[in-house]
């Protein structure tokens, strides 16, 4: 596209109209971006059918969330690490060592749980700072630093615990991992579905309304600035689907017990980190570093500092996951968190992160983690042995990344 300038003008704006051959590429982009959600929906439906509805029973939905919560917390930190073009192999060991620290403080030293929790999170931050220093300031590859960390922090776990499990945890900590919100408004009848907790339902409805409202506001604002938006029909469809999924989950949870506390925690983290990733200067710098770190340097991004804080953040989230996991088992054990990092990494990549960095979303990583969780849970409901579950998970990871690379290559050559 050459642009011959009129000799006397300073350049005339020629905004290309919406028609200029943009329909097809836009659809492809939409498919690639939303493919992960469609895949998730398909997997849920598939396993629900295969398990004759066992997958989506109230109890199992609740279990799914609680069982996978710590992996999802790790996945949030991991996606930022991966967007910046790094990797963290030590997350599982950090989960173990922070769980151990919290156990020693709360159980052995009978420290008040909020203080012990705070110290544990600080310990996680310190671990992240240690690894961040080597990666960001010393310039070692994250692969090596965190591989070393994987060994070092596993060893520290065993040292701290004296090679035995420590428990039980205070009730408050266990509540965070496995407890449910109390019933505030009592129960309400849902016809053939039986009784359900009214408070939970109210929260679900409020969440859906808030979600729709914010999406609608974003859409009208985009229109006001002359950006292209999807058609009203597509928008309504998307919102309806979102509402259906959220309400479906909430109704099942309400019928079982109530909202698990850990879901509240997860929701806060997902919303918070989505905002961090997409809207804050820090988050935008993470993407800039992963997209082209040299260009980021020459744009004034403090690449070293940002990288350092990405790892600190990862350490804090690993500490949260460590406490949640220990609380769930009611014990901190020397082998806790083994292979968690691999699940978190797989979640990020299945959720659309690019192997080369620069691309990825918090919600994508969560969806990737849920896909793995549903496969785990669904296959065990079907009575599949664990080796087969592992096999399927491995192949899914390979297929997801292969698809991403293939789609990108095709987009590249299609020009």
């Amino acid at each position, binding site marked *: *596209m*050459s*642009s*011959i*300038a009129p*000799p*006397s003008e*300073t*350049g*005339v*704006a*020629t*905004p*290309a109209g*919406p028609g*200029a051959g*943009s329909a097809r590429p836009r659809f492809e982009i939409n498919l690639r971006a939303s493919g992960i959600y469609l895949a998730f929906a398909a997997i849920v439906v598939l396993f629900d059918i295969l398990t004759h509805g066992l997958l989506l029973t109230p109890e199992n939905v609740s279990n799914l969330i609680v069982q996978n919560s710590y992996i999802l917390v790790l996945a949030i930190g991991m996606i930022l690490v991966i967007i910046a073009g790094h990797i963290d192999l030590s997350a599982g060991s950090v989960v173990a060592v922070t769980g151990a620290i919290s156990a020693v403080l709360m159980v052995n030293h009978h420290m008040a749980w909020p203080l012990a929790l705070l110290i544990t999170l600080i310990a996680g931050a310190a671990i992240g700072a240690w690894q961040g220093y080597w990666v960001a300031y010393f310039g070692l590859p994250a692969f090596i630093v965190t591989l070393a960390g994987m060994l070092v922090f596993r060893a520290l776990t065993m040292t701290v615990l004296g090679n035995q499990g420590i428990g039980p945890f205070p009730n408050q900590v266990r509540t965070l991992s496995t407890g449910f919100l109390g019933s505030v408004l009592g129960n309400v009848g849902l016809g053939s579905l039986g009784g359900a907790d009214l408070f939970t339902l109210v929260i679900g409805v409020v969440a859906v309304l808030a979600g729709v409202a914010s999406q609608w506001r974003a859409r009208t*604002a*985009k229109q*006001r*600035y*002359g*950006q*292209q938006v999807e058609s009203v029909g597509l928008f309504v469809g998307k919102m309806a689907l979102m509402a259906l999924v959220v309400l479906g989950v909430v109704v099942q949870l309400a019928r079982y017990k109530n909202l698990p506390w850990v879901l509240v925690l997860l929701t806060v983290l997902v919303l918070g980190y989505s*905002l961090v990733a997409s*809207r*804050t*200067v820090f988050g*935008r*710098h993470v*993407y*800039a570093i992963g*997209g*082209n770190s*040299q*260009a*980021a*340097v*020459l*744009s*004034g*991004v*403090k690449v070293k500092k940002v990288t350092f804080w990405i790892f600190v953040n990862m350490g804090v989230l690993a500490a949260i996951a460590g406490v949640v996991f220990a609380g769930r088992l009611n014990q901190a054990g020397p082998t806790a968190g083994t292979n968690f990092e691999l699940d978190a990494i797989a979640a990020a990549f299945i959720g659309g992160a*690019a192997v080369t960095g*620069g*691309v990825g979303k918090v919600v994508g990583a969560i969806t990737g983690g849920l896909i793995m969780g549903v496969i785990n849970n669904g296959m065990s409901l079907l009575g599949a042995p664990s080796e087969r579950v592992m096999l399927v998970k491995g192949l899914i990871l390979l297929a997801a990344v292969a698809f991403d690379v293939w789609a990108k290559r095709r987009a590249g050559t299609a*020009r």
Partner: protein
Amino acid sequence: MDDVILKMAGITKTFPGVKALQDVNLEVRRGQIHAICGENGAGKSTLMKVLSGVYPHGGYDGEITFDGQVCAFSDIRDSESRGIVIIHQELALSPYLSIAENIFLGNERVRRGLIDWHRTNAEAAELLARVGLKENPTARVSDLGVGKQQLVEIAKALSKKVRLLILDEPTAALNDADSEHLLDLLRGLRSEGVTCVIISHKLNEIEAVSDAVTILRDGRTIQTLDFHTQEVTQDRIITGMVGRDLEHRYPEHTPAIGEEVLRIEDWTVFSPTQRGRKVVDGANLTLRRGEITGLAGLMGAGRTELAMSVFGRSYGVDISGRLVKDGKEIRVRSVDDAIAHGIGYATEDRKRYGLNLIDDIKRNISAAALPKLARAGLVDPREEYKVAEGYRAEMNIKAPAVTAVTGKLSGGNQQKVVLSKWMFADPDVLILDEPTRGIDVGAKFEIYTIVNRLADAGKAVLVISSELPELLGICDRVYAMSAGRITGVLDRDQATPERLMTLMTTESLLEADVTAEEILTTPEPTAESEQEAPRELETAAPFEQVEDQ
């Protein structure tokens, strides 16, 4: 007597949108050293890549005759099998292998499927003796200096029974002693019957060793001069290199030059990769408000190194010197320091260092000044969109929307995104490194217009360019750089391509101002006529200018 070993006739090579070579003719006689000269981008390297099969037969028009046979090389091995070996400017040695391993890489001395180390090292030692390199063949290449590595490359070429040796800027990275040794070696090879083609910017070297020189300009053969039958002077070569028809046009512009904004004093930078090598040596520059200043220099002169080291020490080690901004000395330790002090730098390599190619236009534009768009720590995406849309209209960025990915834009539009980024960052001093490289003529005009607007907005603009007409067409003042030193500065009405080229090819001249004066007092006859062009640009300007602002 007419013993021509190589004849390239009517070579035309086209890249998408650019004619790199147009009907180029080259004849090289057997047993001679033949030099090829031209500005950056004149097509020298492209011609050699055509010859050596890097660009295979079929990808170009024209005919290559080597040693009486018409050749159609499909790749570099093909040409090597005929005895044509090219040594590229960036040496292609594997740093952690030994000298002997490098010499026989891809051409291993093998016995019964295993490397014959005895033969490998023995033959390597012979070759090293031939090129006069006193090193053990088992020494690691990374332990050698650049000059010795260059000799290893030549030994490697000799191992391939070379008959025509092509050297691309062989002395660009060498010091004087190493250069001298290399030139002696070339003379020795010539006496052994090896024909050499040497691409060089260093006219004194060409004068010293060559039998003939072919001058290329804008992808065409200008002339071939024979040192044996004609009187060839450096001036004559320079005239051939620069005297071009005015094919580009430049927007008219009357500068409103104000006070000094940035002064670079005694700036010295060392290479981060080659210990002890000065890439910028005691440079002094002054940039003024509203002025477009040029920085001319050939490849390896240290222009980019100077700019990047000033821009937050993003290049080089052991940087010394002073930066004086608005009369006060400033300390700039990092790029964000530099941006905070109002210095911006748009890189010469947009794709590698300038853009996040997988991200969209709006996020690239906001990248250097994101906090400007943030309220309470949150970036306002609508404001960002509005800003980007503004630049899309103002800079005439041709894209369906500011949400389009920058990797898919044309070079000109990518450059406009980079410029938008820096306009949004709003620095007082903006360094533009090769702002029109790889951009078609129409978009160049737009870029020049933007540069003028930046100056009119009171910014001090420093333009680094390898195209002399561009510098003469848009700059109010041009510095020339050679071998890390500022060798002179010429005002617009004094600057001619010849004078600049003389400064750019001057080496080891100590007093920059004296140099400029010496050159000014001895103008060549051709310089007078060239001088008219830049003046003309200024005469009718005032009217147009008002509209621009």
